[in-house]
Each structure stands twice: as structure tokens, then as C-alpha cells.
């Protein structure tokens, strides 16, 4: 087990930022999803030992997050969300220094800094001062400093923040390569669902400090029920009210198409039956392939509705 959390709660002042979070990450790649302020970064910082949990127990790579922080940090790499660097250094010195801080001998750290900088695509710019780097290059060097000591797990906090589309794709490819080819576990925190869907096998949804859903992305998509697009002739309000009474979510599009998110156990037959009961004609019916975004919106919507 790479990460195992049981009932982790974190309070910052009067606010409960994490509320009894239970999480299991067996390895590979996991996306930590949630809107801004959901508690994703706090969870990463709790795993690193930056913030002490008020309640609960947790283990990272088999090590206790309360008592074995140093051992944990020597085995994991962390790429922070915001622009971080050590002033006055060029890229190769910075990455080598990060390796030394992690306990690597200076010679090994320097050799590996060169390798890693080539790996993240900064080989040609490695003698430039980090402060002169563009946003994309700074993201890459932050990834390099997280990887230099060959961690078993890396925590990536919004790694594509501020990147242009090309830079974003390159960064995602890099992260995917790390997790698939290099056998490094990745915990990716992001509010960008396509990023998580691209890289991760597992996903966890956090909202208002609570863990709402967790599992493989395939399972989450499967478990969220079928979805359809339909166009009808007749009273659409009566029809959607009928569906809502069954627990389905309906949204109207500008072109007159209704998007219906069915609940578990209901399929197209239920939709047709509802249409028959409301005396409306279905002129167009297409099953939709569920995206992670659908799952995310559904889970967040249910959570907000329960408040």
C-alpha cells in the first residue's frame, strides 16, 4: 500500500480543511480531484508532514505520517503548486542541490541533475539562471527537483498550472512516462479533469474537505449510471419532472436537446417508459459515454444538495 489514511482531520484555525478522510492508494497513478479550496493541497501537505493532522492515522509507503516524516520525505518527491526555486542558482546547481538536501553525495547529485534535466527537456537550458526561466520551464525544473533523488512516490500539485496547451501536453506526457515506464507512483492533485483522466488509473474526489468518491476511473464512470441525450416532442417540463422524480438529473441544452443522467439501475427502458407515461414522443435518443467530468459534477452536485 502506497498511501493509507484513516479518519484524517485537519483544522486550520476555525475551519475544518480535511474532515475524516479515508484513502487507500495501492500504487500506480492517482488523481486527486476537487474544486479550488477543496483541500487537495492540504492533503498533500499533510502527507509530507507540513501540517500535523488533528485526528486520524496515516501511512505513506508503510511509514507513519506523524512520527516518520523524515523517512517519508526521503522516499517521496514533491512538486509544489506555486513558483518555487532557490535564488541565485542555475538549473543544474539547483537540481543537484535538491539532491544533496535529500541526502545524495554531491558527485552523484550533480551527475543525476544533468540526467534529470535532459529527461524533463531542459538539457540545453541547464546552465541558465532559474530566475530567467519561463513558467513552463519553472514547472519542469520543479518536476526535476522532485525526481532527482529517485523517489518511490511523487506528489504533484497542479503540475500544469499556467502552461500553454503545448507545454501542458508535454508535461502530461512526461508525468505519464514517469508512472508507466519508470515505476514511480504518482499522486496528482488537479482541478483539471482531463489531466487526471489522461494520466491516472485511480481518482479520488474531494470537496469541502470530505472525500466523496474514490476508485479506479473506470469504476467511477461505471458506477455513476448511464447518460443519454434526447430530443422530444411534447411537454418537456412534465417529462423532466417525471425523470427527476426517479432521481435522474436533467439539463437542457440551447439546441433543445435534453441531457439525462440516469441513476444506478435505470437505463433507456426507464426513460422510454417515462416518455410514454408523459405522452411525449422521443425523436432522438443517443447513449452518452461518461467522462470523468460527468462523474465529478454528479458527485459534487450530490454533495452540495445534501448540505
Amino acid at each position, binding site marked *: 500500500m502506497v498511501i493509507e489514511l484513516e479518519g484524517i482531520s485537519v483544522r*486550520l*484555525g*476555525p475551519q475544518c480543511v480535511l474532515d475524516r478522510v479515508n484513502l487507500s492508494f495501492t500504487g500506480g497513478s492517482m488523481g486527486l480531484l476537487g474544486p479550488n479550496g477543496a483541500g487537495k493541497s492540504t492533503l498533500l*501537505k499533510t502527507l*509530507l508532514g*507540513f*501540517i500535523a493532522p488533528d485526528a486520524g492515522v496515516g501511512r505513506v509507503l508503510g511509514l507513519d505520517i506523524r512520527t516518520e516524516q*523524515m*523517512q517519508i*520525505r*526521503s522516499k517521496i*518527491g*514533491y512538486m*509544489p503548486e*506555486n*513558483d*518555487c*526555486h*532557490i*535564488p*541565485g*542558482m542555475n538549473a543544474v*546547481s539547483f537540481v543537484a*542541490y*535538491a539532491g*544533496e*538536501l*535529500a*541526502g*545524495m*553525495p*554531491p558527485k*552523484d547529485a550533480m551527475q*543525476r541533475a544533468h*540526467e*534529470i*534535466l*535532459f*529527461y*524533463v*527537456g531542459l*538539457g540545453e537550458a541547464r546552465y541558465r539562471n532559474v*530566475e530567467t526561466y519561463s513558467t513552463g520551464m519553472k514547472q519542469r525544473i520543479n518536476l526535476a*527537483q*522532485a*525526481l532527482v*533523488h*529517485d523517489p518511490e512516490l511523487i506528489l504533484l500539485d497542479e503540475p500544469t498550472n499556467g502552461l500553454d496547451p503545448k507545454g501542458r501536453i508535454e508535461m502530461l506526457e512526461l508525468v505519464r*512516462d*514517469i508512472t508507466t*515506464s*519508470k515505476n514511480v507512483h504518482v499522486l496528482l492533485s488537479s482541478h483539471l479533469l482531463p489531466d487526471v483522466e489522461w494520466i491516472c488509473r485511480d481518482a479520488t474526489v474531494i470537496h469541502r474537505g470530505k472525500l466523496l468518491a474514490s476508485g479506479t476511473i473506470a469504476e467511477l464512470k461505471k458506477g455513476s449510471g448511464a447518460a443519454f441525450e434526447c430530443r422530444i416532442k411534447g411537454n418537456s417540463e412534465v417529462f423532466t419532472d417525471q425523470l427527476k422524480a426517479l432521481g435522474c438529473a436533467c439539463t437542457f441544452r440551447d439546441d433543445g436537446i435534453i441531457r439525462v443522467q440516469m441513476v444506478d439501475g435505470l437505463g433507456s427502458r426507464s426513460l422510454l417508459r417515462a416518455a410514454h407515461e408523459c405522452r411525449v414522443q422521443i425523436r432522438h435518443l443517443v447513449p452518452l459515454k461518461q467522462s470523468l467530468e460527468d462523474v465529478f459534477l454528479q458527485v459534487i452536485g450530490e454533495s452540495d444538495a445534501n448540505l
Partner: protein
Amino acid sequence: MPIYDLGYRHWSGRRTSHPYRWWAITRRGVGMLAKNKRFLVLMILSGIPFLARSVMIYASTLTEKNIPMLRIDARFFEDFLSQQMQFFGLFVAVFAGAGLISNDLRANALQIYLSKPITRRDYLIGKLGILVFFLALPTLVPGLLLFLVAVLFKSNLEFLQEFYWVPGSIVAYSLVIMFSFALIMLAFSSLSRSSRFAGVNFIAIFFFSKILYGILSSILRSSRVAWISLGNNLTQVGDLLFGHDPRYLSPGWASILALALLGCGSVWIIHRRIRAVEVVS
């Protein structure tokens, strides 16, 4: 195989043991400052008093007359440290120390430091090590070298027999100057994201406390309030360590206490300011 696959290999080397991680911070910090040309000029300038005092020692061997200025005794070494090298120490502390923590705060570097197996204490010791190293160059090192020069020029055992304890006093007094300046400078550096602000404040506190002492002592017509000034406290402790009568009327323990409180307060401030997460309540 794409070419970038060659860029990542697993590393199976042996890590250094944790108690020495601060050394990486000190080593890198010293290396970076040593490349700064303006700082090197300052360090070279700080050697001028040493050369002048060496000439004075040599001159004292040429004359039989008892010229007060050329008297080579414990006071000679104390004055060298308290009057001349303390001044250079102040500027070395500002130049080397003002940005040590403030620049890291400005660049959000603490998250990088503390995400590695580095504790806040390691970080503080590492940064302190940089300042202590550079403060030793204008205080401890020339102080001991000057004593060696005196021993070599005097070339008799009488001098050594009379002042054998002076190297110990030089070491102790240098350490007091080094750690006082280093801790206070780091505290100021940790209070701001601007190294300029930190440096100006440190110098201001040093000179302001001297001016305040001047005003109060002239009002009270007494030097009993000498403990109010950082520089006076250092001088007072120097007198104690070199076995001289204190030059101010304030008790010696008051200066020791004032320096100890400043040191402890600085450590407390630094420890509170070095955090990977800024919590806004």
C-alpha cells in the same frame, strides 16, 4: 527507444546520514557567496586592520621605548576584535546574511527545503553555518593569526608565558561576536521577503541602540544603561573575557543577559518564521 528514456535511471547510491544534512546548506551557501566579487572585496578590506596590527607588533620589537600604542598585551588583541573587526563583522553579517532567509521566503524555497528530509533545525543550522563561517574570517581567524604573529615577532617565552590564555579569550570573544551577529541577522532576514529591508533594519538597530545609549547616558550622566546597546554589550563581554575592568558602569551580567536574550529571541523568531506552509487564520 526515444532519446529521453536515457535520461532517467534509478539511483541506488547511499544517502548521507541525517545529522549532516545541514552541511549541504552551509557548503552551497559558502560556495555561492565566495563567487560574489563585491563580497570578496569586502573580505579583502577586512584584512587591512590585521596587516596594520601586524606592522604595529613588528614596530614594537624595534623600539625599547614604552610607547602605549605599541604595547602588545591582552588589551591590544581585545581592541583589535572589539574596535575594528566588530565593525567589519557587522558589514559581513549584512552582506552575507540579509538575504539568507528572506530570499528563500521571496522565492517560496522553504517548500523545497522542507519537502526534503530536512528539519527546520537543519535549515537554521545550515544557514547559521554560512554566516558563522564568513564572520569567523574577520574575527576568529585574524585574531588567532595576530597572536601567532606576536609570538613569532616577540620570539621569547616570556610573552607566551604571560599571555598563554589570550588565544582562549580570542576564541570565546570571536564566538560571542559571530553568534550574536549571525542570529540577529538571520532573525531580521526571516522577518521579511526583502533582503534590503533585513539588512537596513539590522544596521539601524545596531546604530540606533548606540545613539539611544548616547542620549540616555548624557541625560543620566552615567554609563549604567550601556546594556541597551548591542555594540556596548559586545564590548563589555569582551572586557570580561580578556580579564579587564568593564569600561561601562552597567554590570557585566546585564550585558551577558542582554546578548543571551537577543540570541534566544532571534532563534524563537526564526523558528516561527521557517514554515513550509503559511497558515492564514
